[in-house]
């Protein structure tokens, strides 16, 4: 793919590089803060040109991973390489990666154009040339006519775009994004998700995106790594991670799946394994409606019907097992808490997992 050649060109002078298109590689990387193992023996390969998300709850080690790539942290053990170059001991200012910070970290004493061209100025580029590139970068993020404003005069969404332009103008080999959409309201966040993805696709740049929002990770990424307690518990495409979670943690964290213990699964007619059952795979009927052939059934009591726009989230108690179903509003129009209901799903919807982290 032509879009992948640019970063590798720069390293063409190194004959030993096994040019396999790996942007970032972690080999047994550990980073401890006192007794806290922020990153604990991590192996990871991020391919050149992909939109890669690190997804996990706060304190799971995803931001530490990003900081290790940027060079703000040094690993206690293991090795990190960026485009097959080991980066141990290389300070952040010598790394060909740029970061979009969570709080944007715009320089308050510089105007917008000076913020964006800061990296070019540091590298000694002349004013005329760097301002031309800076304006191009601002146009890329659709921010025109703000050159002489100062960061405090901009809205959160605009500041986010400035931070993005300031990183992209340096043509990094890898762009690191540390929860960049966290502070935006829902509508802006959804807009930026679309724009970020389009930008990544058109630039062919490797994006590493840290987030705790599974919706964000699933909608934008080529691949997602799910983090928990300093480990990566699963890496895969959004489909793989969502539909075939490997562990209880992934099933619950990504999309809030119903996790059934082996005994419970067997009682419902499934295999005697730890099972993930997606809420949207469950259909809800009033008790007494004829059961459909080929589906597994559980009868229970409706505890709660939550309004979710076009959908309703039905929480049911099936003989001590709590199941959550996400169904079309039309299907449960008259359902009230306390009523007896029948829940059903296809056997194939029961996805068996390992009982690990």
């Amino acid at each position, binding site marked *: 793919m032509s879009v992948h050649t640019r970063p590798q060109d720069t390293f063409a002078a190194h004959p030993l590089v096994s040019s396999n298109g790996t942007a970032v590689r972690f080999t047994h990387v550990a980073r401890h803060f006192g007794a806290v193992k922020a990153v604990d023996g991590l192996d990871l390969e991020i391919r050149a040109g992909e939109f890669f998300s690190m997804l996990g709850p706060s304190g799971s080690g995803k931001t530490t991973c990003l900081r290790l790539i940027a060079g*703000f942290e040094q690993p206690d053990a293991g090795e990190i390489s960026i485009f097959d170059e080991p980066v141990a001991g290389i300070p952040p200012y010598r790394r060909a990666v740029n*970061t979009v910070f969570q709080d944007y*970290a715009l320089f308050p004493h510089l105007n917008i154009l000076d913020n964006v061209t800061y*990296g070019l100025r*540091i590298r000694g580029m002349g004013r005329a040339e760097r301002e031309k590139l800076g304006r191009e970068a601002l146009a890329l993020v659709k921010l025109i006519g703000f050159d002489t404003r100062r960061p405090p005069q901009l809205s959160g969404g605009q500041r986010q775009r400035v931070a993005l332009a300031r990183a992209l103008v340096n043509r990094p080999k890898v762009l690191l994004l540390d929860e960049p959409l966290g502070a935006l309201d829902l509508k802006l966040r959804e807009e930026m998700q679309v724009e970020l993805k389009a930008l990544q696709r058109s630039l062919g740049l490797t994006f590493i995106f840290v987030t705790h929002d599974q919706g964000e990770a699933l909608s934008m990424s080529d691949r997602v790594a799910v983090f928990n307690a300093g480990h990566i518990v699963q890496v895969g495409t959004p489909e793989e991670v969502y539909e075939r979670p490997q562990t209880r943690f992934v099933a619950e964290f990504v999309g809030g799946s119903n996790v059934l213990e082996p005994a419970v699964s067997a009682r419902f007619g499934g295999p005697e394994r730890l099972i993930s059952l997606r809420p949207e795979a469950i259909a809800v009927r009033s008790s007494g409606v004829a059961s459909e052939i080929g589906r597994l059934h559980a009868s229970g009591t409706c505890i709660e019907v939550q309004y979710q726009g076009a959908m309703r989230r039905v929480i049911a108690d099936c003989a001590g097992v709590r199941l959550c179903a996400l169904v079309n509003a039309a299907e449960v129009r008259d359902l009230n808490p306390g009523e007896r209901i029948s829940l059903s799903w296809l056997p194939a919807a029961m996805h068996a997992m390992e009982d690990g982290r």
Partner: protein
Amino acid sequence: MTSAVLDLPLPRESLSRRLSDALFKYRGLLLTLLLVPPLLWLGIVYVGSLIALLLQSFFSIDEFSGTIVREFTLKTYAELLHPANLDVILRTVVMAAAVTAASAILAFPIAYYAARYARGQMKAAFYLAIMMPLWSSYLVKVYAWKLLLAKEGAVAWAADQIGATPAIDSILSAPLIGGPSLSVSYFGQFLVFIYLWLPFMILPIQAALERVPGSLIEASADLGAAPNQTFRTVILPLALPGVVAGSIFTFSLTLGDYILPQIIGPSTLLLGQAVYMLQGTAGNIPLAAAFAVVPISVMALYLLIAKRMGAFDAF
């Protein structure tokens, strides 16, 4: 579970509650009550007397009778330009500038450490170490330094022990700053001024650095700036308001001091001493007032330049 509302009685109507009601309703009233006493103090007692003093500088003194002629004249200001007076002004401004520059250079690393690295107990120890010299009497400190810097004093003794006497001798034999001993030289005066005013430089710089988020420094490094470049282009510009605030203290305190130069340093006058002598022994209030205008103008000019240079742009 019951949903009954707790049937608590309302608090008793009292004078203070009614007063609170009134203050809550009329927000401006509270503000007025809070601001009137300090404004009276600052406006009339402080600024008023300052203006009264400055107006004196436009009067002159009758050279024969020694009485003040209450007529508007610029004659007194012309007297400032007399070589002896100009010498006092120049000497004081240079001393104040040197003390300010040296304090800023000494204070910055200390303030930087305190703002960015010191945590918990280290931070408490830092504040204690900075503030403690301010708890003791100014005079005691100055006299202590006179003894330390004297010819047979502790500094000379310590220099002798480590073989640094030639270094001190070379400073003392230098023109202008030197003298028979440190305690009667401009260099000694300079050292003691720094000692006295350093806390006033450290604290504002530390406060300014405290407000610089760590992510800005990381962002600068991320964008390719080596630590020295980050210092020049990010940390220093953002700390500048603190440096300016600190230098207002060190500069104006040095310009106005009249006790330290009496005790330490050569017998020539600094500005503060000149004002002191003119309004006391000499009874020349107009010239004393004209001298007092000098530090005010110098500070105004300094702040104007600082503002032009963008020292306050980030806030």
